[in-house]
């Protein structure tokens, strides 16, 4: 123990032998965590598939209530943010801290745009009483369109899936603000950018899940 920290750069924790080992560990850990996230959403996708198999007519009918245009815009926004987060990592690898911060800032803004659009979509539906579970109380004209005894379940699934996804977006924004601040303090360099890398991995997953959610919920014909 006498010499355990002798050769360690400041960013390497005491129990790692060197920077590479630390980086590889963090990355592997994040991949394992992402697998776990996929299974978490997997449960919801499973519920979706089962109810859709039981009530296919309901799903095509109810999907018309969702605004495919704004859903599409959100898809583009998220794909764009995935690109910028990838560029942020590339900047970090090249030791361009300024580029890292600019790209992160764009990503954060895009994520906020996504949430704002999502907010208006929710707002619109709640206005017509299309709410989850016991709050399900559609206005007469909506009820005429959603004339199906299980229509509430479609929207329960919709709100659960998009809601939990939205929560992930929120967490992602928090993480990126944290990275942004740390980058400002000069914590990162081409030698050490592990947190940037793994946050990027997380963000790609959030994006990926939306890419599945969008066609499944909005684009059923």
């Amino acid at each position, binding site marked *: 123990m006498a010499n355990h920290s002798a050769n360690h750069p400041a960013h390497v924790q005491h129990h790692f032998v060197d920077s590479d*080992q630390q980086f590889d560990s963090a990355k*592997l*850990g994040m991949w*394992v965590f992402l697998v*776990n996230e996929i299974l978490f959403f997997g*449960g919801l996708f499973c*519920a979706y598939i089962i109810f859709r198999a039981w009530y296919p007519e309901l799903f095509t009918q109810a999907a018309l209530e969702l605004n495919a245009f704004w859903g599409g815009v959100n898809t583009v926004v998220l794909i764009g943010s995935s690109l910028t987060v990838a560029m942020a990592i590339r900047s970090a690898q090249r030791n361009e801290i300024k580029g890292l911060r600019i790209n992160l800032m764009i990503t954060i803004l895009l994520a906020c745009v996504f949430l704002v659009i999502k907010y208006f979509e929710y707002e619109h539906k709640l206005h017509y009483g299309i709410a989850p579970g016991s709050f399900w109380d559609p206005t007469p004209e909506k009820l005429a369109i959603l004339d199906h005894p299980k229509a509430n379940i479609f929207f329960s699934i919709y709100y659960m899936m998009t809601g939990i996804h939205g929560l992930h977006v929120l967490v992602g924004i928090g993480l990126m603000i944290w990275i942004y601040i740390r980058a400002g303090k000069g914590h990162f360099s081409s030698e050490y950018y592990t947190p940037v890398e793994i946050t990027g991995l997380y963000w790609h997953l959030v994006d990926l899940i939306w890419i599945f959610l969008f066609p499944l919920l909005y684009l059923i014909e």
Partner: protein
Amino acid sequence: MAITEAKKMTTLQVKRFKPSENPTNNYLTDEKGVWAWMTTVDHKKIGIMYLVAVAFFFALAGFLAIALRTELWTPAKTFIEADTYNQLFTLHGAMMVFFVLVPSIPAALGNFILPMQLGAKDVAFPRLNLASLYIYVAGAIFTFAALASGGFDTGWTFYTPYSSDGNGAGVIWVTLGVFILGFSSILTGTNFITTIHKLRAPGITWDRLPLNIWALYATSIIQVLATPVLAITILLLAFENIMDIGIFDPALGGDPVLFQHFFWFYSHPAVYIMIVPGFGIISEVISTFSKKTVFGYWAIALSSLAIAFIGFLVWGHHMFTSGQSAVATTVFSFLTFLVGIPTGIKIFNWIATLYKGSIDMKTPMLYVFIFLFLFSIGGFTGIMLGALSVDIHLHDTYYVVAHFHYVMMGGTLMALLAGLHYWWPKMTGKMYNETLAKISAVLIFIGFNMTFLPQFVMGSQGMPRRYYNYIDQFTPFHQTSTIGSYILGVAFLIILYYLVKSLFGGEKASSNPWNSRGLEWQSTSPPDFHNFDHTPVVINGPYDYHKPMEEFQLGLAVSHNGHDAEHTSTEVEKTEEKA
């Protein structure tokens, strides 16, 4: 020397090392005080804290079990009301499963032992490790909040629609508690997988991995893959209670059988989360106390992985009477038998390990023998329950109750006790009283069989589980069972007594009291804060009992150069020859 230089070296310099018998410093003296413990990132202290927490919940849930058995002394009311009884068995089940069995071996013993068996200074993510402990505590707080807000009586399986009829805040609190607890399990699993992949000391190739590590590896995979599904299920259930989302509630158009599928997709693999790490301990102990290499290393290592994977495909065998499709029922029954085979292989391999060994019947070994006997019965009765027609008769009777107590208590808990006694000297630096330990082991064996053997008989005669009142013909079985549970209670009190006593007056443990070849025994007792003085270099396998002890004391790199296990091992052996 600088890192770059170390990388250029083709051989490692290895020095002879013998752990000091009278260390001045160890992990217990390194940082002191409550605050130091609460903020520590040391895997050993976290393991100890998990052990204390698990022991606390075990005592609590065990006490509930005694109360339940007391109530069942007479066919009608003995001393508590039906509603209380229903809450108590729910609490007993939920606590034992989620707070005791799931974290017991991986999070308590595993946390302590895994990095040491890998020659690492800590797990890959020490702060996440501490976080997982706090998440566990948060889950516990939610569960107690559930009790404070009226309790819950759904059974630990939370079947809908009984659990979703909006009948109480208790269910919401406890489901959120279990949801939170799941993350603790996920973090431990993630941590272990990464640690095993990336933090092995030089020389620990995959074929020199202790079988305990293989078992924990398989366990971690299940934890990471299954727990999130429980998390989403239980979250949906919570929302079902909070705002009637209707996915599982037939009154709102949902499907209660869907809940069962979701629930068992986690909860069946979860029984492997509980038992597979136990297999790891058995392999370690049986090898040490018969002084012999484990028979069929690869068979045991790979059967753990096989169990982990097939274990994901058998959840439907909990639902043979529930109305799932006929095809599903058939396939699930078939796969259930397949998962029995690797388990059987393990038992035969362990027995073969004893052959021509040098068997020392110390307490940990005694528990291994008890394990092998009880777990075999658990396995055979599992085959019984996997058979479709017989399961129709036995499902949801005391036969099932007895079966899973044989597997979980006779299996996991006996393995845990074996491991606890085996590693106790390493963890605390003290020896326990061997005589008392053996007496309590025998008492546990007697008490256990007295408690649960009668349950097989009354179960196959038709006694359903979760019954507060029962028909008179079952009285003798219930009374025998109750007496057995008291014997068990006394035995656990004796264990608690001598373990606590050993902490204060126990004989000092040497660094390797059992003469084991395991890497964790090459450190001092209790270990140093960083486990080993220097990065260890592993030259021999963990079970090379045919080699003299001195060879095992060769094995520490002069400095912490190199960490890539695969690439350095051969060079190490060359160095050894030169030396």
